[in-house]
């Protein structure tokens, strides 16, 4: 009789079983559904929370960064400027936060049943995407309001890049997240370190200030952060202001592809033995 499955101590470096992942696609959609239904169960305001968070954050930023610190907003209305950044950054940080604890927060279920572990971070990135799209509608409402009022914001052809920008954000957060989660199964020090870094990372990304306020040399350093070009491209496509360059965007894309490949390989290796070290 032919055996269909072999269980061995070690697998090859690039031995990722995509066929198996495809087989579990229904699990992926079930996890997405679970995340969406359960996140606001037994709350009074329910899905309204999707809006409350960005609204209050925007107001805070308007008061602190624009009102007190007098940081310019590239000539854009403040709510629009901050909402654009917040919507993108919250997606990135939410994905990163949840994917980076994949192994630790799922150790109970991972210890009982086998399925391709990558399904969990993949579904988290997707369910966060739905949340982000809901928040994006808030941005669009404010955007339409300013268009009607007659503020000079000019959407242009670069707006079509939006789906690619989102895929890049998802890929980057997934890549970073699964690498962090693979590294933290054994040494928890890294959890503390990364939690701290993500907090500071926002300030290294043009969310609360426009990239154009910096000298070209500093802009070049800022562009090393792969999120920078994504945020700037989004602002440029929707509102016609910001710093857009194909080189910067290409760099971010390449960064994402390499990061994600490394992440999948590392994650795949760790998932086979993490139960012994977690």
């Amino acid at each position, binding site marked *: 009789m032919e*055996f269909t499955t072999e269980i061995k101590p070690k697998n090859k470096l690039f031995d990722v079983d995509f066929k198996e992942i495809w087989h579990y696609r229904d699990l992926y959609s079930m996890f997405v559904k679970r995340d969406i239904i359960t996140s606001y169960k037994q709350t009074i305001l329910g899905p309204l929370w999707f809006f409350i968070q960005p609204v209050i954050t925007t107001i805070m930023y308007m008061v602190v960064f624009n009102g007190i610190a007098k940081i310019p907003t590239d000539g854009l209305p403040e709510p629009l400027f901050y909402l654009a950044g917040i919507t993108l950054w919250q997606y990135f940080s939410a994905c990163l936060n949840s994917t980076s604890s994949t192994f630790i927060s799922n150790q109970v*279920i991972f210890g*009982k049943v086998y399925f391709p572990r990558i399904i969990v971070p993949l579904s988290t990135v997707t369910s966060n995407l739905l949340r982000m799209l809901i928040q994006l509608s808030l941005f669009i409402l404010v955007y339409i309001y300013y268009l009607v009022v007659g503020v000079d914001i000019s959407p242009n052809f670069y707006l079509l890049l939006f789906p690619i920008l989102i895929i890049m954000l998802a890929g980057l957060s997934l890549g970073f997240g699964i690498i962090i989660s693979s590294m933290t199964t054994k040494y928890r020090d890294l959890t503390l370190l990364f939690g701290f870094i993500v907090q500071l990372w926002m300030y290294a990304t043009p969310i609360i200030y426009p990239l154009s306020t910096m000298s070209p040399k500093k802009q070049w350093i800022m562009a090393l952060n792969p999120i920078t070009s994504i945020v700037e491209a989004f602002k440029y496509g929707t509102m016609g202001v910001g710093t857009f360059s194909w080189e910067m965007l290409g760099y971010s894309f390449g960064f994402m592809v390499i990061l994600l490949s490394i992440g999948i390989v590392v994650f795949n290796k760790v998932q086979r033995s993490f139960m012994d070290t977690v």
Partner: protein
Amino acid sequence: MSVAIKFENISKQYRLGLVSTNTISHDLNRWWQTTIRGKEDPYLKIGDINDRATKAESDYIWALKDINLEVQQGDVLGIIGKNGSGKSTLLKILSKITSPTTGTISHTGRIAALLEVGTGFHPEMTGRENIYLNGAILGMTKAEITRKLDEIVDFSGIERYIDTPAKRYSSGMYVRLGFAIAAHLDPEIMIVDEVLAVGDAEFQKKAIGKMQDVSKGEGRTVLFVSHNMTAVKNLCKTGVLLKNGTVDFAGNINDVVDYYLTDKTIRGLFNNEWKKENAPGTDKIKVIKAYVSHDTPFITVNTPFEIITEFWIEEEGFPVNVSMVLWDKDLNCVFNISTIQKPLSKGLHKATFHIPAHIMNDGYYIVQNYFVTESTPHFIHNNANSFEIVEDRESSGWHGKWIGAVRPTFLKTELTALSIDLDLKNT
């Protein structure tokens, strides 16, 4: 008959103790030796066998060592062994939760592991939503679950609650639903671990029936892990006894169970014997033996046995009675009986407590002996010896633990009709 699962040299090494700075130095050393210098893993060669009772001499331990096993298709294999013998590790490797340190397992078809049913249930989701979620976790597609949904709900017997959030369920309902989902996976290989310990008689009957259907009717392979020897004997054809991470005995299930029950050392039971120099006791009394005596290879609820303690009296005419207190494994006192007090001559004496058949319940028992003189305890001998009484019951479809401190089956019971309902008879 063909082989459904083949284990070849399966070993699993664990590191003892906590993850510490030592771990990182071992990791670096391992990386240096294997990746850079291309040598063998320096920590793979060492490692104690897995015996909890002895002090570890190495930081590494073999939870499993060189397991070689072939399971025939359609077989129901019982895996037995005391806690820590490697049963769970073996199942975890087979169900791909962790990978083996060395060796290969080859198998055909889908494996469903009922290591703990209801895994991944979300308390906020309804029973129906949880069927889909849990089914998907176990590897079913959505279409497959939809097709079997009615059957699953019916099997679980909780139809009324199917649209209620799972957090309102009792633990029994959780298990019923979880088992119902797993039982409808239609796996080629099914792993069942102690699910029979929970649930009521009716549900146990259903669960066992399903297991038997799966193996008999459909020619699927079942691996069953349990401490319940009655259930194992009734359900399995062949058995494997694990001891300290190795296969101690394999073969026909009755032989394996008998071997296991006869070997006291496997189960941590002890009869005691001391040399006179270091015997427990006082200057007047020295205990040299404490044991149980029985004619059968092991004690069941249906066999009589004797609890015996042998001791030296060092002072001529010392008045003593022996009072034996029997404790169960939870340290509840089962009963206390005593010999009559009389002056004993200098020399060796023996106190025997005859326990008839059909009175004790199955379980693990510990003996404590009081040597009493003039109504005051002269010497208390704690943990003198221990023994186990094994279940021996006709199969009634129910394999749960019989409750009660004792089980006096010699007591007369009666069930009589008082009147016959004529209407009912006519319909």
